[in-house]
């Protein structure tokens, strides 16, 4: 064999080895806000702890600007990302509008939103006639808060509401006296309680089954890259296992501190909130509960975002990658 051919073969082999060593590239779309919030924990932990590398994935987070969870499915269609983090209502909306995107794994089932009030307000019923700072009326937070009020005998019309986007802005409204109560995510709810504000209830009391955020991919892309998708799902499942593993608690707390820029003590309390046994805030290993998807669809219908007949939850989900990854 001519020397040139041998050299060429060696060069090709070396190239292939280098590609394998670096792993298969997977571009994961993430909204900027999610990147800096607790909702990126499962993926951020998998990345920090080398779970993607272990699966032979060269994992790359891509943040589209301008961003927002309502634009993440578009990121799949314009080739910005291969898979993406997305809030389930936006996946449903995009799919109904013709996208072939589906959920391939769950990231967060049921976010914990705390209804926090001024110290002198002792219970939810005492909010009658008072001002509650609400999130976007069509979003998951407002849905769950309306349910929580109803659980305690209040209709939304019994309170004065004002729409305030973002937990930091709602906390400012509470602190400034413009709101008597507000729903807060983490870590601000923990901080507010430390400042003397009172916890009246949490969203999970009223909405026990939900599917807040998922990893989505286009059916066509996922089918053509099924092995890579299965590896991704396996790494994500391992991350959920790590979040619940007491032996790995320091690593998980360190990840929360890094992501959300809070003190370790606050990060510990946030972790306790999410990893509490029996609370289904996080999936066990990325599994998708169709009842959670159905709840999302029902909430969207309640808000007039979709009209009957309501679509089946299964339309927005492809469980085959979870099955192949060994997730039940």
């Amino acid at each position, binding site marked *: 064999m001519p020397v040139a051919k041998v050299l060429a073969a060696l060069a090709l082999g070396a190239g292939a080895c280098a590609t394998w060593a670096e792993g298969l590239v997977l571009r994961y779309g993430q*909204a*900027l*806000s*999610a990147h*800096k*919030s607790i*909702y990126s924990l499962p993926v951020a932990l998998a990345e920090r702890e080398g779970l993607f590398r272990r699966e032979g994935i*060269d*994992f*790359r*987070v*891509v*943040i*589209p*600007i*301008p*961003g*927002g*969870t*309502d634009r993440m499915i578009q990121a799949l269609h314009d080739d*910005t990302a291969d898979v993406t983090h997305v*809030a389930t*209502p*936006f996946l449903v909306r995009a799919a109904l509008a013709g996208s072939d995107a589906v959920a391939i794994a769950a990231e967060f089932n049921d*976010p914990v939103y705390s209804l926090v009030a001024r110290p002198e307000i002792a219970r939810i019923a005492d909010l009658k006639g008072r001002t509650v700072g609400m*999130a*976007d009326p*069509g*979003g*998951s*937070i407002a849905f769950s808060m309306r349910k929580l009020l109803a659980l305690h005998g209040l209709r939304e019309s019994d309170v004065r509401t004002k729409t305030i*986007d*973002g*937990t*930091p802005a709602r906390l400012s409204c509470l602190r400034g006296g413009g709101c008597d109560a507000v729903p807060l*995510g983490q870590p601000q709810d923990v901080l507010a309680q430390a400042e003397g504000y009172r916890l009246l209830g949490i969203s999970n009391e009223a909405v026990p089954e939900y599917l807040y*955020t998922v990893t989505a991919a286009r059916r066509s892309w996922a089918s053509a890259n099924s092995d890579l998708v299965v590896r991704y799902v396996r790494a994500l499942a391992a991350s959920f296992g790590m979040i619940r593993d007491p032996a790995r608690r320091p690593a998980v707390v360190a990840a929360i501190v890094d992501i*959300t*820029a809070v003190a370790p003590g606050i990060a510990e309390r946030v972790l306790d909130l999410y990893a509490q046994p029996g609370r289904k805030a996080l999936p066990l290993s990325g599994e998708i509960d169709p009842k959670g998807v159905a709840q999302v669809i029902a909430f969207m219908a309640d808000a007039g975002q979709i009209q009957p007949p309501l679509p089946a939850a299964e339309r927005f989900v492809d469980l085959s990658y979870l099955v192949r990854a060994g997730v039940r």
Partner: protein
Amino acid sequence: MKSAIRLVLLAVALLPAAVLAGANRDRGQDEVGPGPDEGPSYFGVVLDAAGKPVEDARVTATSRDGLAMTTRSNAAGAYHLPGFNKRINADEVKISCAKPGYRQMRVVRRPAPTGRPVRAVETECRLQKS
């Protein structure tokens, strides 16, 4: 023309953080505004070989560990990307631009003013028709 483009870029770079945060707002999922740990933002312009603005080019800022932010240039060829976490060294962030039918010629980083903290990093990205 060049000075006009630079004026536009300067205006973009000096937009208040709140306005830029508004442009990046999340609807439906809770927001986190730009935090105190945010590093310098990235802005600049995409031009073709003749120095004309290139609209709708994809501009990507990639940190050393692979985290990427991506946006599209506007009609003036201008783009703006928010800062990464302060822990990410801005000198190690690579800016690239791409558009179907073009190939990247070069990326020139404008020197930052000396003696002051860097609030924004300016680059000019040149594309050539392929």
